[in-house]
């Protein structure tokens, strides 16, 4: 069954509609929600929605509970290759918990929260942006980590990043749900504007694994569930461009690197010279890597998870 949770008029002969697929079986009361498409250029979650629903439809007899899938919280953005909400200035993931008396989109954010409230688990799938590729990972606010890490461990992801509490993040969907006791995990994986099927399959396996542990899925699950690295067992090193130019990569994403390894070069195509050799400052795993070649000073190039302190860039 597809339910419309928001339907508001657009100026000319169109409704802004936010819809969810509701799959229910058995008498179990557990409910999980899979939400994605908050940023219109992040499409990795689309495959997850498709594959999750496909597998559920084929084996619905093993479900005891409710799975709700929201493929596009920002349908205008997804359908127009726009990260934000067309005609609205603020990032959709910075306006939660919304405002029933505010702009249409703030009102929409409020209604989304009301609809998700009370779920036993919400997985909020993101896909970086067009600039960076991400290893499948959970992002968890340190304040909520105790409750959420056990669930994130089930999701067949490669990394759990426990981040500090930043006030600005209080306006995200995940934070807003967590504070009203609706447990929510943010999953980041892949890259904007693309679908990485392997990552999607990996996460879908993890969602079924989690449902099994939650006693709402009695079918088979993958036996090969990944045990993720956790950021609190090491440090996350950020590498930003020192100069503006064009990046020529030297390593692949999700690889182990040694201190001093060449990650990429920033070059000047006019002069044919290398402006910066970007070297790894540590031994570690490259879990974020820039793929978009044009960089300005400060552009993020990579994030490396390491067991040793980041120190100075080599």
């Amino acid at each position, binding site marked *: 069954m597809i339910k419309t949770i928001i339907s*508001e*008029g*657009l*100026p*000319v*002969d169109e409704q*802004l509609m936010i819809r969810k697929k509701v799959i229910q079986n058995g008498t179990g009361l557990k409910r999980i929600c899979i939400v994605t498409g908050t940023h219109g250029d992040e499409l990795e979650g689309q495959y997850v929605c498709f594959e999750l629903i496909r597998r559920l439809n084929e084996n619905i007899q093993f479900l005891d509970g409710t799975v709700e899938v929201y493929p596009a919280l920002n349908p205008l953005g997804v359908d127009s290759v726009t*990260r*934000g909400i067309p*005609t*609205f*200035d*603020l990032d959709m993931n*910075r*306006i939660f918990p919304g405002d029933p*008396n*505010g*702009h*249409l989109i703030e*009102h929409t954010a409020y209604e989304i929260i009301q609809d998700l409230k009370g779920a036993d688990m919400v997985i909020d799938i993101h896909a970086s*942006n067009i*600039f960076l590729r991400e290893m499948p990972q959970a992002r968890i606010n340190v304040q909520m980590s105790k409750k959420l890490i056990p669930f994130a461990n089930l999701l067949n992801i490669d990394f759990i990043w426990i981040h500090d509490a930043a*006030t*600005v*993040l*209080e*306006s995200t969907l995940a934070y807003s749900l967590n504070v009203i006791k609706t447990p929510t995990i943010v999953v980041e994986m892949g890259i904007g504007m693309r679908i990485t099927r392997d990552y999607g399959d990996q996460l879908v396996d993890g969602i079924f694994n989690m449902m099994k542990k939650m006693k709402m899925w009695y079918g088979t699950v993958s036996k090969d569930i990944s045990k993720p690295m956790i950021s609190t067992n090491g440090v996350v090193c*950020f590498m*930003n461009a020192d*100069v*503006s*130019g*064009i990046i020529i990569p030297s390593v692949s994403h999700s690889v182990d690197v040694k201190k001093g390894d060449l990650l990429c070069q920033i070059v000047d195509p006019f002069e044919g010279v290398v402006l910066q050799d970007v070297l790894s400052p540590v031994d570690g795993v490259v879990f974020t890597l820039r793929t978009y070649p*044009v*960089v*300005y*000073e*400060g*552009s*993020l190039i990579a994030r490396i998870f390491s067991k040793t302190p980041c120190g100075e860039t080599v």
Partner: protein
Amino acid sequence: MKQEILFQMKSPYRDDFKIQGFRFGEGEKSVAIVGAMRGDEIQQQFTCSQVVKNLIELEKDGRILPGHEILVIPSANHFSMNINKRFWAMDNTDINRMFPGYDKGETTQRIASALFEQVRGFKYGIQLASFYMPGEFIPHVRMMDTGFQNVKLAKKFGLPYVLVRKPKPYDTTVLNYNWQIFGTQAFSIYSGDTDTINKESAKIAWLSILRFLNSMKIINNNIHDGFNSSVLSDNDLETIKSNQAGILYSLRGAKDEVKEGDLLAKILDPFTGAVRSEIHSPIDGTIFFAHDKPLIHQNTVMYKIVKF
């Protein structure tokens, strides 16, 4: 006046990105004024340019009072303005959501950091700001309720209203909030327009800044007192939302005084022209904000009215 490059960054193919500052007087860091931080803030850039123009003349006449330094930064994002984008040209991030900035972070964090380094420590900070909803405002001073705000000072601008509002979580990364947290009395001036120049409202804004500087004895420039500002909070504004979508046929705009029952706007069917909805004022008051785009979504803010 000293014109300085406050921040410079190379681009792969475009000209260098520069933030220019115009420094007047010497002495105590008295006031910093920031204009356009978004590429469509043309009204803000124009207003700031007029502030610079006036200060050049005042300085020539010896009317910037001794012991005061004034820094004006008319534009912090012309890379976007020159190509008709609102946010940062490369990655669409908003410089005014990056404060206090981080000099080792991403590009717009670095720009925010460099800008904040220049403007922090001033006694007063004035930003010419724009709003996230399209529309026209009554010129007003806006402050966040951080516990550090000083409403009495805000009234010195002589604008019709001073609006004090509770910050939302995302406000903690804007310039105004960080100015206050770091000890500067911060004011955002809303003159009513953004991507078009409205000379009348721009003049109200730049005169209000000169009035404030005169009142604080930073310049000597006698000017009429302006309004005895009314101080508002969000609760003093009645919000009227659209109950239909369509073509907006506005009959009343910002600054208009209205009576309960007055017809404010019609929403028209975009195919037949039939009136889908008539929007009437629920109260007596003054229109503080009016949506001013020709198309309107359903269930969105059309008007905010100050209750009498």
